[in-house]
């Protein structure tokens, strides 16, 4: 409520976040997922320290298609490059892509969804009809068309994925915000003459943040796989830059002779996506007010 500190899970008071953390820790699977994710992030951040970038893009004719060994933990690929190094360097692009695209899509979705839900009427109608039209186009097809028009590469891939993702974020945020804007304290704020922008960003969105965070977390996993999918068909990150989807694409031709080339990047994608999903599950339970009452 306006002017009062309501004891809800979504009010950002230190003690409440401690409560959220306590509830989260009760979910052992989510905690394991978080630990895995932290390890992956640390490997990605310190990739250059662990293994030099040049060595993972430089070809080596003498060491092609070697299986896993002490010298090359994940083996080498068809160009003689160390696969372990390429997987951890690839984590940078995949994680960065997933997080950045989610953040940008979230921002776009928040602006459009919150505006549509808050103002309603014609504004809501116009925004949602445009969103509906965009959602008629299959997600991947829309992303592919945009990449084809703009050319391949990280920048155009990011723009394409964000544009293709904003509609679903908008819908999700709109539905969440709709439940908040109908609250009495929002009506009270309006009657007190508080500006609309202030109401949206100070009262509406903070009270809707819980489900938004959960959905965003799960979308990171989906966007990592979308990036891998675009790179798999040659429309994303260009060789020799290590990116998990690109690596999978190169490995498909070698699947029978050198399965390690497809297993390790595939595992990386699966584990990362799974960790984000499990994290999202854990957050869902931790942010659920009914859990706080236990």
């Amino acid at each position: 409520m306006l002017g009062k500190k309501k004891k809800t899970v979504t009010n950002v008071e230190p003690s409440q976040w401690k409560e959220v953390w306590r509830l989260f820790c009760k979910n052992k699977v989510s905690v394991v997922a978080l630990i895995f994710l932290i390890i992956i992030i640390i490997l990605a951040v310190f990739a250059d320290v662990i293994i030099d970038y040049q060595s993972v893009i430089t070809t080596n004719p003498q060491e092609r298609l070697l299986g896993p060994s002490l010298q090359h933990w994940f083996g080498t690929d068809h160009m003689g490059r160390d696969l372990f190094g390429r997987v951890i360097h690839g984590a940078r692009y995949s994680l960065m892509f997933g997080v950045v695209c989610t953040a940008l899509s979230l921002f776009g979705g928040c602006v459009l969804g919150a505006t549509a839900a808050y103002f309603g009427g014609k504004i809501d109608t116009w925004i949602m009809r445009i969103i509906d039209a965009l959602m008629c186009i299959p997600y991947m097809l829309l992303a592919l068309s945009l990449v084809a028009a703009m050319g391949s590469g990280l920048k155009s891939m990011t723009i394409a994925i964000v544009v293709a993702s904003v509609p679903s974020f908008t819908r999700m945020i709109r539905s969440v915000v709709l439940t908040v804007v109908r609250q009495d304290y929002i009506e009270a704020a309006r009657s007190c003459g508080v500006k609309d922008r202030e109401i949206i960003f100070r009262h509406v969105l903070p009270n809707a943040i819980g489900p938004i965070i959960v959905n965003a977390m799960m979308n990171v996993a989906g966007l990592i796989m979308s990036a891998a999918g675009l790179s798999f068909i040659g429309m994303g990150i260009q060789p020799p830059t290590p990116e998990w989807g690109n690596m999978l694409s190169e490995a498909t031709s070698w699947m029978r002779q050198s399965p390690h080339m497809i297993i390790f990047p595939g595992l990386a994608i699966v584990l990362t996506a799974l960790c984000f999903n499990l994290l999202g599950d854990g957050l869902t339970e931790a942010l659920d007010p009914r859990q706080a009452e236990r």
Partner: protein
Amino acid sequence: MKKKKLLALLCATALVFGLAACGSKSETPSDDQTTSEKKENTADKDTLVFISHMTSETLDPLTTASATGVDKNAMHQIYDCLLQFDNEGTPVACLAESWEDTDDGHAVLFHLRDDVTFHDGTPFNADAVVYSFDKQFANPLTSYITTYYTACEKVDDYTVKITKATPHVALLPMMAEGPFIVSPTAYEKGADEFAKNPVGTGAYKFESQGTDQYVHLVANEDYFDGAPYYKKVTIRTPMDSSTAIVALQNNEADIAINVTPNQLKLVEEDKNLVAEVNTGWSIKYLNFYAEPFTSDENLRKAVYYAVNRENAAMFNNEPETIPATTLYPQRVMGDYVDLQTIDGYDVDKAKEYLEKSNYNGETLNLYISANEASIAQSVQGDLQAIGINVEIVQLDTNAYYAKFTDGTCQMGILDFGTDQVSTEDMLNFYVSSGYYGEFVAKTPEYDAIMEKVNNEYDADARRELVKEALEMQYNFYNMVPMYESYFNFVHRAELTGFNPVSGANYVYYLGKVKPAE
């Protein structure tokens, strides 16, 4: 719920590691079959199954161009051409049993067989040949052939005269690839009707084409060169190479073409399959299409000497790593092959020319299609080793070829060459008015010498002019010939009768295929 998720995670991990374990050498399905049992598999069958490289969108060869859904693999079974390829890739008799140049050397007389009939029973003769040629001349999609031959005239019922457009046209190989000779009687009923029921003189007759686009053919028992062994042929739509190999191993197919080089290793390990690998009529090139290359000769030379051709071939899994020693493919150069030997990889020379060039450290682009990713990375590594920064840009095929002419593509990798071009044709691509003329280095002297080449009908005199032109073109360093391109096809080991060379141009004679003795 949490236990179920943990269980799911453990199962997924176990599955993945299980797959890894299965990745070690495994026996092929029929390794332990005896030779006679294997023969039974294929000899018992009355249908030969061929996995093609493209879907056959039409079987009418006269109203379409080769780029628009015409599957030559199907065409060469239903139709014949005037000539055909032998096992060395040399054009030999087919519907024409002999030929000779006219006195002035401007045309060739082809003497036709008089014992051939079309599938509809009508006779094959000079009228049918002229009819087929005239249709090609009239079709806007194929009228470009007038740059190679300008007319086909009837001399008598079994003799035609084909007039060359230039003295150096590779007329004989062209006549082994087209035009396909159709039955005028059948074609006059209407092109649409003909496309549904094509009629030629080939070893196989058209039976049907299903909604799956598979083409079904039946043997022409009255074929002039002998009835085929296999009574039926099915030409299947393309599939991924690894899937095609599995289909061959499971006896679901008999022949697959254009298998990716990395699959050939699997074929080597399987006694039931044979990979026919050979060079064709093309070389893998690194070409220059725009600035700074067009005006910076030293930069072109630096790149020329920096590229390690052996590594490029090895990373692309070619069966051999033999660098190109001629400017153009050896089969194309033919008798001219001994006129010139070109240099190859030399890092010291590369660095020396880079020092002299105007290269300012900018990142240059290298455009490729998906098939060239490995070679591109090899080239990128070679150039970076001497200090040239390269960015690889991968495009789909149509966009890739469009990039050559819009001025944004600085370098590109492609296969270049075909049996239908001569050395002189290749040299003509680089004159001022040629296909690449706009964005390559050239001089008025080069244009002048090529003008002489194009009008010199004396073979000896033309040879000397070609030698001079080759030297000039080489010294422009407009391209980096890396290695002769290999092509392959894989077939069941029990089969024989394949032409190992013509497949480079998708010319397969399935009427000659039969079980080995």
